[in-house]
C-alpha cells in the first residue's frame, strides 16, 4: 500500500487498472478451465462403449442431448453473470481504494446538499468557499433538483484539509417566493480533527416566515 502511494497518480491508476485486468483474467480463467475438462470428458466418453447410448439419445427428438445443451447454456450464462458481478464488485473496491488514497480519512472533508419541500425556493446553483477559496460552483438542472426534492443527498465537494479551524461559506442562488431572484449565504466555522469531516447544506422551508431556510449541519 505504501509503495503504491509513493507512485505518481497516473502510474498508480494504471497499476490498479492492470491489477483489475489481471484479477478479471484470473476470474475468467477458472471459467474456461472448468469448461475444458468437461469438454475433454465429453470427447473421451465418445470413445468408450457406454457413450453409444448417449449418442443414441441425441437422435431422439427432445432427447437428453437437447436438455443437456440447454443446461450447459444456462450454466454458461450464470457463469458470465457471476463474472460480471465480480467485475462490478472489483470496480467498486477499486473506486473505494482510490477514494481512500486521494482523500485519506485524516484530511478528508465532504460537503453534502439536501433539500426539503422546496415550495419557497427553486435551487439554481450553489457556490462553496472554504477559507475564502472557491472550491465548488455547481449548477443544478431541473432533474437534479427533482432528485434532491425526492430525498436525494448530493455530495457536492470532497477534498482535503489539515487539522484546525476552518470556515465554510455556501452561497445559494435560485428563485425565491413569487419567482424572484434569491441569493442567500450561510457560513459555519468548524474544527477539523483527526477523522473525516462531513458537513451538510440543508435547504428547508420555513412555513411561518414563508421563506426558505439555509442551514449547515456538522455531522459529528
Amino acid at each position, binding site marked *: 500500500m505504501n509503495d503504491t502511494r509513493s507512485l*505518481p497518480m*497516473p*502510474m498508480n491508476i*494504471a497499476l490498479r487498472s492492470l491489477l483489475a485486468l489481471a484479477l478479471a483474467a484470473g476470474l475468467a480463467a477458472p471459467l474456461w478451465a472448468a469448461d475444458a475438462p468437461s469438454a475433454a470428458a465429453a470427447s473421451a466418453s465418445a470413445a468408450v462403449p457406454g457413450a453409444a447410448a448417449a449418442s443414441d439419445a441425441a437422435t431422439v427428438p427432445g432427447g437428453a442431448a437437447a436438455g443437456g445443451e440447454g443446461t450447459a447454456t444456462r450454466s454458461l450464462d450464470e457463469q458470465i453473470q457471476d463474472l460480471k458481478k465480480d467485475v462490478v464488485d472489483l470496480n467498486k473496491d477499486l473506486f473505494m481504494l482510490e477514494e481512500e488514497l486521494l482523500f485519506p480519512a485524516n484530511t478528508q472533508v465532504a460537503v453534502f446538499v439536501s433539500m426539503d419541500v422546496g415550495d419557497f425556493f427553486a435551487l*439554481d*446553483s450553489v457556490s462553496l468557499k472554504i477559507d475564502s477559496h472557491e472550491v465548488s460552483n*455547481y*449548477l*443544478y*438542472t*431541473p*432533474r*437534479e433538483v427533482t432528485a434532491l426534492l425526492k430525498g436525494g443527498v448530493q455530495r457536492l465537494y470532497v477534498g482535503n484539509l489539515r487539522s484546525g479551524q476552518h470556515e465554510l461559506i455556501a452561497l445559494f442562488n435560485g428563485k425565491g417566493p413569487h419567482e424572484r431572484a434569491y441569493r442567500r449565504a450561510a457560513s459555519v466555522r468548524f474544527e477539523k480533527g483527526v477523522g473525516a469531516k462531513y458537513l451538510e447544506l440543508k435547504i428547508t422551508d420555513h412555513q411561518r416566515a414563508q421563506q426558505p431556510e439555509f442551514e449547515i449541519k456538522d455531522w459529528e
Partner: protein
Amino acid sequence: MRLKYRAIRICGLALCVLGVTTGLRAAMPTGAASGSVGHAAPDFALPAALGNNVRLSEYRGQPVILSFWSSRCGLCARQLVALDRYYGTYRSSGLIVLAVSVDDDAQHAQDYARAHVTAFPLLLDQAKTVSRAYGIGRLPTTVLIDRGGVVRFLHSDDGAGDESYVAQIRALLDDKFGGL
C-alpha cells in the same frame, strides 16, 4: 568502470520510466483531445439564455448536436436556423440540439434568444470554459455527439444545409457507431 556501468544502468532505467509514463499519457485521454473527433465529449452544465440549466450528460443515450455561436456572427444565425429545421424534423426520433453562445455579454445572447425563438435551448458560456474544452477556434462550429457521448463529427463552417449533415444526423440516430 563500475561507476560508468552504474550511470548507464541509471540512464537506462530513467529512459524506461520515461517511456512508460509517455505511453501512459498517450493512452489516457487528455483535456485537449477530449473534445475532438473519436473522443468523449467533455461534460458541462450551462445556464440557458431563457429557461433552465442544461447538463450534457443528462442526454446520454440520445444523439446531440452542439453548436457554438455568437449573436454578432451572421453565419451563426443561418446555422441556428438550419439546426432548428433539423430539430423540428428529428426531435421525435430523439435528437437533441444545444446551442452554446460564446458572447462576452450574456445580455446580447439573451436579446438574440428573445428576438429569434428556437425550439432548442440557447446556452450561455460567458466564461468560455466549454468552448475551451472543445477547442473551438472559429464560429460557427458544430459538434455531433453520438448516443454514447463520443464526438463523431465536427464542422467549422455554416454548412448545416448540406446533405452531409442529414446523413450524419441519420447515422447518429441509427446508432451506426455502436455508442451504447
